[in-house]
């Protein structure tokens, strides 16, 4: 009887049997994507001037840190990737290459700064001891599914978003001019696909950075990419603290 009830539930609620994250993906994010920089141009396409905080809800502590920004010192200390960390990398003009590393892991490579982000769908136990911090941190991924709903039918299109939560970051810069985020920053992102009337496929990444030390309120931006048919323009370049 229990099996019968489960089967009925599955039929009525439209729930398929458990699948791997790759197999159950409601959207296909894989492929090459190019940044479209139609917003925040002078903070993204060129290096902003020191002390320009326009749009970022910074704290006084952040102002003090940003006013000490010294790109030459960052370079000398091997910290030229500070503005390529997870909270900033999607805003850096360039191309993305997204692939499945395995059934549980989505990999996002950015040619700007030659950075790699790993989105892990597998729930892991917290490691003991101090966290191992990095520019890209640890990213937990999940599908944010949009239910088909009653009457949607088995062949209804599957919809949803990728939600990524990133912590264990090394402190870095939200913008290249030294506006800081601390190692306590938490990044939440939603990856949504948009199919336009003109036939383009766009990737919209909505990012929310929360940082009790350097932000007065969550810093929220959305960044757009257009899907490419191939790797044209893919050009890995090293991090630069000055450009």
């Amino acid at each position, binding site marked *: 009887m229990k099996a*019968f009830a489960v089967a009925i539930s599955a039929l009525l609620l439209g729930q398929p049997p458990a699948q791997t994250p790759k197999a159950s993906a409601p959207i296909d994010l894989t492929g090459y994507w190019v*940044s479209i920089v139609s917003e925040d141009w002078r903070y993204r396409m060129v290096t902003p001037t020191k002390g320009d905080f326009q749009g970022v809800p910074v704290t006084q502590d952040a102002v003090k840190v940003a006013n000490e920004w010294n790109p030459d010192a960052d370079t000398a200390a091997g910290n030229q990737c500070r503005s390529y960390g997870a909270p900033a990398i999607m805003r850096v003009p360039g191309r993305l290459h997204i692939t499945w590393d395995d059934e549980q892991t989505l990999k996002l490579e950015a040619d700007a700064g030659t950075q790699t982000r790993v989105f892990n769908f597998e729930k892991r136990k917290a490691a003991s001891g101090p966290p191992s911090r990095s520019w890209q941190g640890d990213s937990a991924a999940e599908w944010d599914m949009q239910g088909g709903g009653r009457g949607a039918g088995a062949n209804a299109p599957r919809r949803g978003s990728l939600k990524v939560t990133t912590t264990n970051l090394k402190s870095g810069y939200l913008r290249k001019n030294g506006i800081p985020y601390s190692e306590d920053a938490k990044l939440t992102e939603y990856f949504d696909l948009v199919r336009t009337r003109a036939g383009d496929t766009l990737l919209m990444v909505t990012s929310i950075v929360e940082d009790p030390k350097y932000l007065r309120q969550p810093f929220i931006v959305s960044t757009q990419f257009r899907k490419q048919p191939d790797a044209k323009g893919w050009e890995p370049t090293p991090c630069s603290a000055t450009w």
Partner: protein
Amino acid sequence: MFRHLVVVSILACAAPAFAQTELAGSWAPRNHEDGLERGGGPYAVDYTGLPINDEARAKGLSYSADQLSMIEHQCGQWPPFYLVEGPFGMKIWNEIDPVTGNTIAIKIGAWEDKALQTIWMDGRPHPSKNAPHERGGFTTGEWQGTTLVTYTTHVKAGSLRRNGVPNSDQTTIEAHFVRHGDLLTVLEIIDDPVYLTEPELLSKGFQADPNPMSPVGPPCVAGYEGVPDGKVPHYLPGTNPSIDELTTIYGIPREATLGGAETMYPEYRKKIKDKFVRPEKCTQNCAAPAAPAPPTRPASR
């Protein structure tokens, strides 16, 4: 077993008939990108990242902000994409068929110089191309999953950016309203066969606001502001005094400030790398938060 079936049936029926989401409510703006443009307004000649053609550029350079004082322009400058481009939040509500309960339209409230926008959800077609163009345009919408996708035509000519870069009345706007919890992201894809060589993308984040917003702004009442009848404030070619403003303040090469589709793509950085000179320090519109006031001396007793 019957009891199980009843429970399961109730659960199934509780699911929405279609995958939609509720957008009604008040939404506070989060102007964290293009902060200056969405606050005080852009620099007079900042066309960076705009896929404009030569005609749009020429018209933009001829523009004087004094045109806003012309009777004709005082209340009609901003097409519906000002929702994303402007500084304000939005109030959304549904208009419901009282018999069927179906949503006939979704409305986005007005705000000062932005007109009320009606998004028709009842499947009606767009009007004839000869129909009048309104400030709010004519918009239809449909749900794609939990995303509201709208399409706007019949807008009035105005400004693509708040510095006189034009949009024509042939402009169309495709908007995607994507909600995640209390966060609503609106992506607008603006196309204009007259002034753009490819679509312009604008996006903005909003957060649900428990404080109710007004669905209307103060009315715009056009009046004489010192521009005589028949005069159109403008700059003749080659005389716009602001053309090098971004170069002076930010070191951005003039060719980049004048926009064009190529300025939207990563490769463009190579083109201007050797021409860009980063100024030592931000000198204006830096938006640093005000330092806290020094502690006040206790009042003497």
